[in-house]
């Protein structure tokens, strides 16, 4: 039996000890003497969040298929254990072997959202690895970052030895081979980083220098090492049917956010919403084959014993084989007590039919994401959903027996006026009116229309990367405008409004488009005790404001400026497929309120065709 890193006393003292013991079904045990490379894969948040992430399961499976690699998992110890580990100087350990992370060859950290950045420092700190890449010795693991935030790694660049930019399936083998090769030749850490820097998609921050203009904007960003590439090309899998998929995902003992089989049906999105980073950086849209998906579904249900399966993609209604896969899942598994959890679908005859088969109509709700209240605003963001479509879809569903609707919106979008804000509750009210058009004896009591707003944050590699944000007070004001207008509505008693916190929005905005200089704010915030910032009960805005002040960093520089056409962005050295000129064209069209057709209607020459696959070549071969 394995020896645990934590004592019985500690494990019985902390909340949910199952977070720290490993041993789950399908977790991979190997003999550490028999592998060449030990890789610790980290999601810098608590176990229940990290275990729910598909990307980690994909990489964990992919690495462990190699005989010479043992990939293990590590998550952020929750605050109770964090405190004990610091007091007793217990080094952070991996779940499988329970060995200290500092003994590993690699520590890979996935970057899913900006508000986990202080947890990266916690992971390094508890692992007893120097926080700054430049301070690390030959003994320390190579610290790699990856995931969506790696398209602008600059705010955390100083803490990483390298970043893997893009989808993990393409270059990791080359990177691991380079590591082995370097070790065989007795090369140093620096030698390895130089080898890595030559691999496509790999970015070694210390091989680049950033120089700034007097106004604070970036002047130049150039390699200082001959091995470093001028541009880092984001990695994309061309053929989704040729990559491996984790058919034996790890099954946690405790309830986690995503406690089910997740079947990824496609990557990318054809729609081109202008605020959406995923819709831009995962271009082009690539689908998986129906037969492959069927096979995966059965294998995964069998190997995990999960009682639920869900589909994963950005916009499932656009998946060409949607009918095929949903019908298969229902026919094959519904009778065996397996829940089919549907993604949010465009409402039509097909989706209403399958929804009524797999959900309890009285309990489930319909979801729409118009993202903006007015048609003018929806044209600006290129969201192709119209009021007619929403009302028609809702009407059909109401007639089918549904009476709960959820609507999602954003506030603080570029060019937004007070009228646009007020259109949000008005649209919710129109949905309610549509419900009450149904004769009383045919409807199912009152309806419940819940609408939520989040605040828009401009992200790199979107047409809105040039946009300005607002102050915290302004965000709160906008939410009040919406709330006030809701009270004016006819069906206000059937409406419910939720809005997100504004202070986190501003911070996320800073780090989403931050440069290297913002890393000192992160470090200072961490020193002041910030951790688990995406958890509202842990988040402490005062400490963050203190950190900005202590480091002399001006929030407004990052959030309140509308960027000019010529400005060099900190992330411009990354080639994400979509070109800056395409994005700027889209920004201009947005300002004119012009809609751009989706990839299947008409190609807009965004640049992603360079990957030579996916939707760009649909029907062309």
């Amino acid at each position, binding site marked *: *039996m*394995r020896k*645990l890193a934590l004592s*019985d*006393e500690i*494990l*019985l003292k902390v909340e949910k*000890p*199952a977070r720290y*013991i*490993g*041993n*789950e*079904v399908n977790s991979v045990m190997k003999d550490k003497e028999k592998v060449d490379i030990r890789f610790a894969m980290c999601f810098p948040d608590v176990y229940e969040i990290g275990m729910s992430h598909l990307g980690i399961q994909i990489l964990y499976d992919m690495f462990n298929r190699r005989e010479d690699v043992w990939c293990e998992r590590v998550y952020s110890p929750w605050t109770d254990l964090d405190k004990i580990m610091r007091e007793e100087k217990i080094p952070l350990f991996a779940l499988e072997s329970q060995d200290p992370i500092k003994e590993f060859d690699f520590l890979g950290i996935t970057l899913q959202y900006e508000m986990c950045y202080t947890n990266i420092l916690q992971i390094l700190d508890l692992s007893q690895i120097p926080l700054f890449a430049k301070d690390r010795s030959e003994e320390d693991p190579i610290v790699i970052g990856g995931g969506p935030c790696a398209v602008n790694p600059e705010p955390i660049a100083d803490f990483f030895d390298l970043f893997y930019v893009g989808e993990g399936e393409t270059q990791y083998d080359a990177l691991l081979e380079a590591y082995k090769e370097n070790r065989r030749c007795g090369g140093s850490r620096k030698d390895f980083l130089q080898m890595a820097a030559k691999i496509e998609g790999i970015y070694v921050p210390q091989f680049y220098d950033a120089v700034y203009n007097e106004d604070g904007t970036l002047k130049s960003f150039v390699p200082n090492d001959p091995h470093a590439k001028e541009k880092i090309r984001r990695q994309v899998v061309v053929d989704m049917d040729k990559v491996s998929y984790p058919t034996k995902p790890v*099954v946690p*003992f*405790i*309830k986690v956010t995503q406690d089910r089989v997740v079947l990824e049906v496609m990557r990318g999105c054809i729609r081109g919403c202008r605020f959406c980073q995923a819709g831009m950086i995962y271009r082009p849209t690539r689908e998986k084959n129906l037969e492959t998906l069927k096979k995966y579904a059965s294998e995964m*249900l*069998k*190997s*995990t*014993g*999960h*009682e639920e399966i869900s589909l994963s993609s950005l916009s499932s209604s656009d998946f060409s084989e949607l009918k095929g896969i949903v019908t298969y899942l229902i026919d094959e598994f519904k009778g065996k*007590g397996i*829940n089919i959890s549907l993604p949010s679908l465009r409402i039509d005859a097909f989706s209403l039919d399958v929804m009524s088969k797999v959900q*309890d109509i009285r309990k489930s709700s319909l979801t729409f994401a118009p993202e903006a209240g007015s048609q003018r605003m929806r044209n600006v963001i290129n969201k192709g959903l119209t009021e007619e479509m929403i009302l028609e879809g809702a009407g059909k569903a109401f007639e089918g027996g549904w009476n709960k609707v959820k609507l999602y919106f954003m506030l603080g979008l570029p060019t937004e006026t007070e009228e646009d804000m007020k259109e949000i509750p008005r649209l919710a009210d129109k949905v309610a009116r549509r419900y009450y058009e149904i004769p009383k004896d045919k409807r199912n009591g009152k309806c419940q229309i819940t609408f939520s707003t989040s605040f828009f944050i401009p992200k790199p590699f979107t047409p809105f990367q040039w946009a300005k944000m607002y102050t915290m007070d302004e965000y709160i004001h906008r939410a009040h405008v919406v709330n006030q207008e809701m009270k004016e509505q006819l069906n206000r008693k059937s409406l419910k409004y939720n809005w997100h916190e504004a202070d986190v929005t501003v911070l996320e905005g800073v780090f989403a488009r931050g440069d290297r200089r913002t890393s000192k704010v992160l470090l200072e915030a961490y020193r002041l005790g910030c951790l688990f910032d995406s958890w509202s009960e842990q988040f402490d805005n005062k400490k963050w404001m203190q950190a900005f002040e202590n480091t002399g960093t001006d929030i407004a520089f990052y959030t309140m400026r509308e960027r000019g056409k010529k400005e060099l962005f900190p992330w411009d050295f990354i080639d994400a497929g979509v070109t800056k000129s395409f994005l700027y064209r889209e920004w201009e069209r947005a300002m004119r309120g012009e809609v751009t057709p989706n990839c299947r209607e008409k190609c807009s020459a965004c640049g992603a065709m360079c990957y030579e696959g996916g939707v760009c070549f649909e029907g062309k071969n």
Partner: protein
Amino acid sequence: MKARIKFRKYGVMKYIGHLDVMRYFQKAMRRAEIPIAFTQGFSPHMIMSFANPLGVGLTSDGEYFDIELKEPISSEDAVRQLNEAMVDGMEVVSFVQIPDEKKATGMAIIEAADYLSIPKKEGILFSNEDLASFLSQTEILVLKQTKKSEKEVNIRPWIHKMEMRGNDIFMQVSAGSAANLKPELVIKSLLHFLCKKETETDFYYHRIENYARLEDGKLIPLDGLGTKIEG
């Protein structure tokens, strides 16, 4: 047809709480392809009921739950298939058929349980004489926390037996829905009685068996009430 499953829980699995053990076995049933029956209705769930939940931190050689089968499976196949689906620290010991009546299952049939209390460190020594004088008391009063209040109860009648097994203390105590005595509480009163400075947290606790009472008054391990299912 009803079946009773006996399992062991040891090693790191002691940190998995009762609700998670239930979830674990629901998934294990599917992995092992046990033909378990489901409830009717919109969201069917497995028909499964656990006896005498074990607290976090305890290990056990005698845990039980009952299930409803929709078609028969031999005891031998079921044990093998389940053990192929287990993790380290979980082992299925037996799989037997039990009578169909309602009163044959659940917490209500449990009468007693055996435990070992194992000192975490060396040097905590007791003798059979210590135990005998502890048990010679007519009343052993302890404060029992209920949801609303604290009340003093006499636990002496619920301690059936105590003896030394090497350095470990063996005890047989009342369990089930009528009276359910936790071994930690017994050790706590024992330490208090003997004026020892240690606390009940200085021991590991291990459950050995859960018993039902037969009509003649004898105790029988829960799986003793079932019969082997032949292939």
